[in-house]
């Protein structure tokens, strides 16, 4: 039998909340799939759409942007900007025909290790039936 497809997820996590949340999941030894490549950024508001497209170009099967809950941003408003920008990216991605399930955004606080693991688990489950993302990927 062929090996089961394991999607690769690039996760842009804000340093103050989501990255801490993923750390918490790690130190608490919560189980979640090893499919994620986390990239810590200063703020979800600092995630340029370019990073997202480039992750897909470099072969990501799914991309997650995760920041602090509204009102909790270390920089006060960063995640509000992100919310708008990501909404636009999401619409654009859907419009050009990439499966919308491949791109997610979440709010994960430093205390929400459990929520983080759940998000990843669900994301992996959602990506598996889609198979590898080849549409935007560069030829090898």
């Amino acid at each position, binding site marked *: 039998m062929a090996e089961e497809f394991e999607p690769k997820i690039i996760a842009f996590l804000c340093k103050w909340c989501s990255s801490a949340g993923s750390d918490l999941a790690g130190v608490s030894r919560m189980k979640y799939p090893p499919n994620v490549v986390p990239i810590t950024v200063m703020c979800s508001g600092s995630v340029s759409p370019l990073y997202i497209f480039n992750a897909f170009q470099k072969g990501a099967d799914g991309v997650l942007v995760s920041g602090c809950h509204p009102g909790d941003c270390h920089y006060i408003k960063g995640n509000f*900007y992100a919310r708008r920008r990501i909404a636009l990216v999401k619409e654009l991605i859907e419009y050009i025909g990439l499966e919308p399930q491949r791109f997610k955004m979440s709010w994960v606080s430093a205390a929400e290790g459990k929520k983080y693991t759940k998000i990843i688990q669900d994301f992996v489950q959602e990506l598996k039936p889609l198979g590898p993302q080849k549409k935007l990927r560069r030829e090898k």
Partner: protein
Amino acid sequence: MVNLEEIKKEAKNILEEGKVKYIIGYAKSSNALMAAPTFVKKPEDIDKLIWDPTCFQNLVKFLLDEKRKKAREKEPDIRPVGIFVKGCDSRAINVLLQEKFITREDVYIIGLSCEDLGVLDEKKIFKKLKGEEPEKIEFDQRKNIVISTKEKTIKIPLKEILAERCLECTSSFPVISDVFWGDRNNRSPKEPFKSLEQIESLSQEKKWDFWQQQLSKCIRCYACRSVCPMCYCDECVVDSINLAITADTTAEEKSQKIKWIEKSPESSENFGYHLVRAMHLAGRCIDCSECERVCPVDIPLRLLNKKLEKVAKELFDYKAGLDPEQPSLVSSFKDEDPEDFIR
């Protein structure tokens, strides 16, 4: 009615008075169906100026050259530049003002209303001509275009060959100007986003097939970027060298510049370029659709930008270029912005 003779009179006046450095307007080109930009410096040259539905170009692009030139000169002439603008072009000026790329004193805006018309779509005309070459064109009462080819003369109602964007235009008159000709009647097209419907109704895979086929054609001549008045960055993701380099830029800075998008016209790279450009125009594109007009391989680029225009309108009630004082789409937010897609 826009009266060309009156415009010329005004142009002559402001040149004679020295009120403007020069005037950017339209003149005839060797292509009967398309005007060419012209730069009138002397009052005696005003007779070159024309105004009709062949005046496609968004001349606001040339304000970028002017700004760069001024920055290089030691004692620049600070008088404004006179410029012909249509409704859509005027919105471009507003965005540049909003982004503080230019100041109001930099331009003397000669506003020209498209009234109930707009500009022609060359491709629609070529379809009607079925391969014959136009030799001469005339406009009959702003209703019809009369095209003479070698074989025959045909009359086409203008409404049938107007550019898509003009048919979907909601404000066909300049929203900012120093002098103005024509009417200020708001148009209310029933379906301002009709051109998007066909793609929106496709399945995910069909959408992909469509865009993959279209964007694979891209030869990366960057005409879309070059013609766009909003594409004024000194540093663009697709350039091999950061054009903002100065003598003080260190080797480290230069070598650390990330090559996000390769020069190869491969599908993935083309998507990278066009998606980034679409995002960068979100809330800034004023739908002059010059990018689509100039594309030598006919990529329907307007449909990318128009989509984000629609999203901005529907999700954030935002419209670009109507008010130079409004905050830009992506550097502002409202508490009630949608977040149902976020977990």
